[in-house]
């Protein structure tokens, strides 16, 4: 039972991550590989604050805001840098965040990570924390669903398909991209804060590149530019992730096997269903 609650909580947090990711990647067409860096910003901001005695709720707000600010700056170059170059630039952001986390030891405790992150009072019980996470997930899902289905969501899709034409129809593309990435960063900052207080221990390793790959894989599998796609894609990957545990495989092989399976899945999706299960758009 404890295992199930643990898995469900993690899954809920990562579905939040996937939903927030679909906004810039699936809708605005910005291949932001800095998303995991933003998750780290949220997690570390909250962890640093609560371990120095600040309340969980304030830390949560701070995590969302600071991640949002980083997201804002990450969106600024999108005006000039597009496509693969934007992906490379944002990948650089993840590297920089990781380097800071590893080396600003006074603040982040470096490679050892931050331990003893307290659960918020009233939510120390795993089941209570799951409920809290589900409330956040529910709110995120409602918010993202509403935004994506609105004219704003369509305007983002226009920017993705052809930003020059969108401009010539009166769409301020820079502002649209900025808003999309800001909202995405705020949500992923919240997810990061929840993650830190759930697993109660974070280190830079958790926010490294393999995580970028698997969030992207979830979105590619479920389908870009699709609300359902983000949720289902992440659920499928999570199910595979957990089910492998029950095979009698040496623990040392488990990690590599997961990566092999994800890569194969990604390959199959790209070859046979480039838009994913529910997707409407394809990143070029």
């Amino acid at each position: 039972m404890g295992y199930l609650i643990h898995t469900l909580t993690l899954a809920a947090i990562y579905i939040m991550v996937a939903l927030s990711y679909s906004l810039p990647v699936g809708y605005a067409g910005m291949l932001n590989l800095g998303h995991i860096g933003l998750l780290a910003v949220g997690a570390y901001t909250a962890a640093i604050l609560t371990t120095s005695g600040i309340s969980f709720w304030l830390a949560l707000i701070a995590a969302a805001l600071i991640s949002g600010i980083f997201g804002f700056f990450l969106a600024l170059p999108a005006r000039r840098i597009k496509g693969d170059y934007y992906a490379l630039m944002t990948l650089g952001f993840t590297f920089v965040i990781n380097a800071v986390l590893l080396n600003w030891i006074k603040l982040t405790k470096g490679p050892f990570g931050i331990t003893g992150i307290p659960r918020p009072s009233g939510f120390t019980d795993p089941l209570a924390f799951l409920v809290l996470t589900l409330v956040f997930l529910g709110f995120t899902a409602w918010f993202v669903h509403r935004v994506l289905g609105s004219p704003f969501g369509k305007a983002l899709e226009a920017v993705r398909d052809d930003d020059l034409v969108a401009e010539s129809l009166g769409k301020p593309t820079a502002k649209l991209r900025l808003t999309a990435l800001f909202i995405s960063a705020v949500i992923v900052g919240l997810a990061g804060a929840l993650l830190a207080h759930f697993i109660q221990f974070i280190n830079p390793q958790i926010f490294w590149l393999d995580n970028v790959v698997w969030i992207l894989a979830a979105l590619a599998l479920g389908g870009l530019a699709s609300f359902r796609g983000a949720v289902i894609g992440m659920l499928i990957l999570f199910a595979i992730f957990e089910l492998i545990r029950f095979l009698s495989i040496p623990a040392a092989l488990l990690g590599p096997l997961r990566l092999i399976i994800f890569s194969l899945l990604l390959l199959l999706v790209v070859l046979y269903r480039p838009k994913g299960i529910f997707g409407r758009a394809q990143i070029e």
Partner: protein
Amino acid sequence: MKLMPTLQIKNICKSFGGVRAVNRCSFELVDKKITALIGPNGAGKTTLFNVVNGFIPADEGKIFFREEDVTDFTVWQRSRLGMSRTFQLSRLFKNLTIKENLILALRQDDDLFWRAFLKRGEGSELNKKIVEGMGFVGLKKNPETSVKDLSYGEQKLFDLTRALLNPHSLLLLDEPVSGVNPVLREKLKEIMRHLKEKGETVLLIEHDIDFVRSVADWIVVMDQGRVLKEGLPEKIFKDPEVLEVYLGPTE
């Protein structure tokens, strides 16, 4: 007091590397008339068009639109002021439906995400405008179909519909009949006449001289980045200089 024309192009210069694509180009559009911009390949028409629309910044010169200096305005700002354009090769939002594409043209407030949380009730009004717009150009397609299903000719009509539905006071049409079949060409002539009746102000680039002759009220001839001549169609097509540029030197 004389009213300023919708669009004034003043001394526009634009170079690419060492090539002067547009060289001190000036003219004004006559309101509620169709002005055609013609000239041989490489005359600088498309460059000038993109400077007017804002895709390309001018090196020198000014663009005045509805009494405002828009030279430093972005593309979307010019669009919101009332410029609407089509593309030589139709550029559609390819993952969206016809209806979604057209709603994007109609809406001017979709950059505000928080509006997603307000009540909206203008759906039927937008639908009505879309049906009207498609009816005006004679595009017979289910609005719910993907734009990918449109043929080349239908794409041309669709691009025009989108530009017409985008709130505007100036229409910029980039080669509306290039590559279309004769039947559609006649249909487009008809549409242009209807546009004139509606009192639209149009700037048009077109190579098809027969088409230009039958729809344009005023013609501007460009050659080597300059305005060579401008005038009424019947005069322009008898002008020896224009004929020389188009057909080569006379004997």
